[in-house]
């Protein structure tokens, strides 16, 4: 498991364009989920 994780991180660093686009896409989507999720806390 740890070896797989290390390999995954190494691969991500080797393909920065892929990693950055995937992470940014997820970050924006999860970010919008979070910012409007807060609206339920009235």
């Amino acid at each position, binding site marked *: 498991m740890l070896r*797989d994780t290390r390999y*995954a991180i190494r691969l*991500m660093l080797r393909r920065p364009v892929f990693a950055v686009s995937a992470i940014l896409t*997820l*970050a924006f989507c999860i970010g919008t989920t*979070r910012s409007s999720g807060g609206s339920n806390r009235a």
Partner: protein
Amino acid sequence: MTWAQAESEIAAVAQPVMDDLYRTAPAREHIIPLQRGETERVRQPILILWGAVAAVLLIGCVNVAGLLIARGAERAPEFAMRLALGGGRAAIVRQLLIESVVLALCGGALGIGIGYVGSRAFGSLLGDAFGVTAQLTLDGRILAITAATALATSVAFGLLPAVQSARVNLRETLVASGSGSIAGAARTWPRRAMVVVEVAIGVVLLVGAGLLIRTLDHLLRRRAGFDGTHVMRATLSLDDARYRTAARVNQLFAGARDTVAPDMQRAVQSIDPMLPFAKFRTLDDVREEAVAAERAQAVLLGAFAALALLLAAVGLYGLVASSVAERRRELAIRMALGATERQAVIAAAAPGLVLAVIGVSIGLVGARAAAAVLQHLVWGVSVRDPLTFAAAASAALLVATIGTLIPALRIVRLNPVRALKQP
């Protein structure tokens, strides 16, 4: 006491009173939880907004899944080699799932930051839309929900690409690796289907946002029957023993009627300095406040629709870009055999455009069904408003065309001789 017992006990007490009060229109009492009663007004807008958020998250995940599928296709020789050396498919699926979990954790961590900034920036908008007065803070619950969302999405959307990548044909892949083979349609159909879904969801959100914007426009343009420009409004508290009679109230207003603001306040105070004088606003301000919720809802849904459309365009861009990269050899052969640059660009862009048109068509049908949900939030415009539907379709097609053409135009720079010489 159970809910049913409470209901029947209250009915026994309240029903005779209700029957007496509403003789012409029979009414029935109904008990609901306090929390539900307090949030009844904002329940539907919040659910719709959550629907939009879920749609944006879905589009984002579909995009990442598309990226993972394309990456899996690129790495087919690596997986084939692992299988040839005796590695199991389960190990490959596990490896790819761990990769998507790592991606999702990074995305989730950054997403918390973006969400924090977003909730600061849109805090007042959320306040207007739903009457939220509580301070929005980052707490354990939010972190847990975000982590759970990130993990769930990574597993749900990493699984299909992982399984698809592990289903590699050993002999074919090892023989073909490095020979620049022409991409088969069968391998790309899940990505194509995903892009169609993305565009369709984008159109549904766009139609929803369009209807809310048209509602706001209708409310702002609606003539009140008077010119509110120079009309002031103020609230006076006449909850006082001295103003029990109409004559006293008339006397008060007669004194204040002929003077205008800011003299109005002075006029009232000159008559009674003890009287609280508050909420001094123009009628235009009052009107703005009345449509604040509609405005905030339209802005929020509009922002989500724009984000969804942008993500859908990015998805199309990714699909066409990887298809152009895969078909480099085929397109070079076409150009070597006499196809013009224009023909080659059309050949590369056409599949993307066809997908966009299919997505928009499905989206329009979906929007027609989904618009019924907005029935109670839309005023002065039909939920089937053809203008809104046409505008949403045109906007989606325009954005999709741009997303498709940018990578397709790369062919103009393609050197057929060099492309054919490359392995």
